[in-house]
């Protein structure tokens, strides 16, 4: 399999803190990659650098053969990378549909004339997207489809996570970043959500997924490969079993958990 995303020698500093330290990381086409490591090891910073929120101090990011280092977040989205956020960043007072449509930005017709005066065409476009959003929601939780015009603020935590995942998926990205989708949920909910995500992957179009997760059980069940970060460096990579067997990893991160 050829790599979809190549990061070479990425370094990101915040004042005196080096959040990413010459990191090399590849994501292969169609794989589910688990990104693990202790708090502050640079996992979210990695997402932020790749998606264009931060500009790396040095290093290169190549996506599908093109250099995307330092591009604006908007450009990177248009090239097919979508993400969710560690602390849910939904617009709570907007409806479920509105939030999903924010993720669909590249498909929307944004012309003034079209939006204000050609209402008939606009409505047709709206109906189409409404149908797409409903289908996507049904794949995760059919009940959500009935609440599509309700504000997201009224939903439970797991449903908000689902909406956030729909928002990232509606644009059919080639690479999806999920930043701790289980945060704030019970273990049961996490399991449920992960099953849904895996199911999505198998029946939809192929996309690569990078998952930041602290629940090692989740990582074990769904990822095909893991990368362990520590202090912004790659400690080790490979299958779950390989990684967890690594003594360095046990020392840095898993430690006593495995001894039990």
């Amino acid at each position: 399999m050829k790599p979809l995303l190549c990061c070479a020698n990425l370094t990101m500093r915040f004042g005196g803190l080096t959040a990413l330290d010459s990191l090399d990381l590849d994501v292969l086409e169609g794989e589910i990659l688990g990104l693990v490591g202790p708090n502050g090891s640079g996992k979210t910073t990695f997402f932020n650098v790749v998606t264009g929120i931060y500009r790396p101090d040095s290093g290169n990011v190549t996506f599908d053969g093109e250099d995307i280092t330092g591009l604006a977040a908007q450009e990177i989205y248009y090239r097919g990378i979508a993400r969710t956020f560690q602390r849910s960043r939904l617009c709570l007072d907007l409806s479920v549909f509105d939030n999903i449509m924010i993720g669909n930005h590249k498909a929307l017709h944004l012309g003034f004339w079209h939006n204000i005066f050609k209402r008939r065409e606009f409505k047709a476009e709206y109906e189409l997207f409404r149908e797409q959003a409903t289908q996507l929601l049904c794949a995760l939780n059919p009940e959500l489809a009935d609440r599509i015009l309700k504000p997201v603020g009224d939903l439970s935590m797991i449903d908000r996570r689902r909406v956030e995942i729909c928002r990232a998926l509606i644009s059919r990205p080639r690479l999806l970043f999920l930043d701790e989708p289980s945060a704030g949920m019970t273990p049961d909910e996490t399991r449920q959500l992960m099953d849904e995500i895996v199911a999505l992957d198998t029946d939809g179009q192929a996309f690569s997924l990078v998952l930041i997760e602290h629940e090692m059980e989740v990582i074990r069940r769904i990822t095909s490969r893991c990368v362990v970060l520590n202090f912004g460096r790659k400690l080790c990579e490979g299958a779950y079993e390989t990684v967890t067997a690594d003594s360095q990893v046990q020392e840095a991160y898993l430690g006593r958990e495995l001894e039990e």
Partner: protein
Amino acid sequence: MMRQMLAFLSGSAGCIVFALAIIVWLHVFLMAEEHVPIFICLVTVVGLGVAANMLKVTDAVRTSLAEHERLWNLCALAVPLALIWLFREDHYNLFLIGAIMVYAVAVLGLNVQLGYAGVINFSCASFFGIGAYTSTMLMTGAGLPPLAALLLGGVMAALVGCILIFPVLRTSGHYAALVTMAFALLFKVFMDVNDFFGGPQGITVPPMTLFGIDFSHNMLFGDTELSFYLRYDLLCLLLLGLAFCFVRRLERSWIGLSMDAVRSDDTASACFGINISRWKITAFVVGNCLSGLAGALYAMMQAYISPANFTFSDSLLFLSILLLGGIGNMWGVILATVFVVLIPEKFQVIQEFRYLIYSGLVLLMIIFSPKGLLPRQPRSYS
């Protein structure tokens, strides 16, 4: 009994009942001249509002509004028309009705900026003033026809907005607030010291003429003499209607959605390809254009303008209307404009105390009910 009544009100009947109630109440309120009846009117409406909220009548009305929107739009048009007709000979009340409509247009503009795109603007009254002064100067100085001057007033406000938006875009939060605030203060002082624009004494504004009809003369209808403000009111209603349709379509489109996204979370917006500057600029320019148009029409209707009409306090007044009505809710904007314009006018005795009472009320409102009279509802795209 109660349930039947609620069902009745949530249908199309609710709309008609509501519209009739508003016509009757506004008519009585505008006719009232003694303080006791004015006070009774106000107490009645507050009481009715509280009771309606407790008895879930507001929910019924909301359902009716969502399901019979076309009928509501018609009624919204019928209410001012009915009032204009009822007061056809009354200069003063017709002027008030016109002022309400013009102010509502300006606040709708502010609503696009602040309510949708979240662009802070403490200089709404200045853009209102730019529209007013531009159209006046174009008429008196360049001899342009009033309609063209009116439209160019809006264009000029939009253009000045295009310049001011750059420092606003570069800054955020309180820094952006200061940029617009400084502009409001600067505008007022500039108009005060500048002789070209009439200085602090102000200038008289030529009347509107449209299709050869001079708007400054009364007209005869049968054997009743109709107030000249009637034509202005119809023009105001036209402007308000167009502005309302425009802003609503804007809200219910991908443009409105993008603006909402920019307001609620710029990081997330950027990660989904939304061009933040584009929507902030659009909102600021559109909003200022509406304020400018409103200002130009207001100047013609009032026939006289001076810098005292466009102070920083007036900008605060526009902002307060938006906050009172409920940020983002267009019906709320209109409702709040009605109260904010009428109440000080009707209470001549408290005229002296009006700023005090009024700012105190807004202060309490912000502390205890920050969502305003009519909180914004989730978007529908119909």
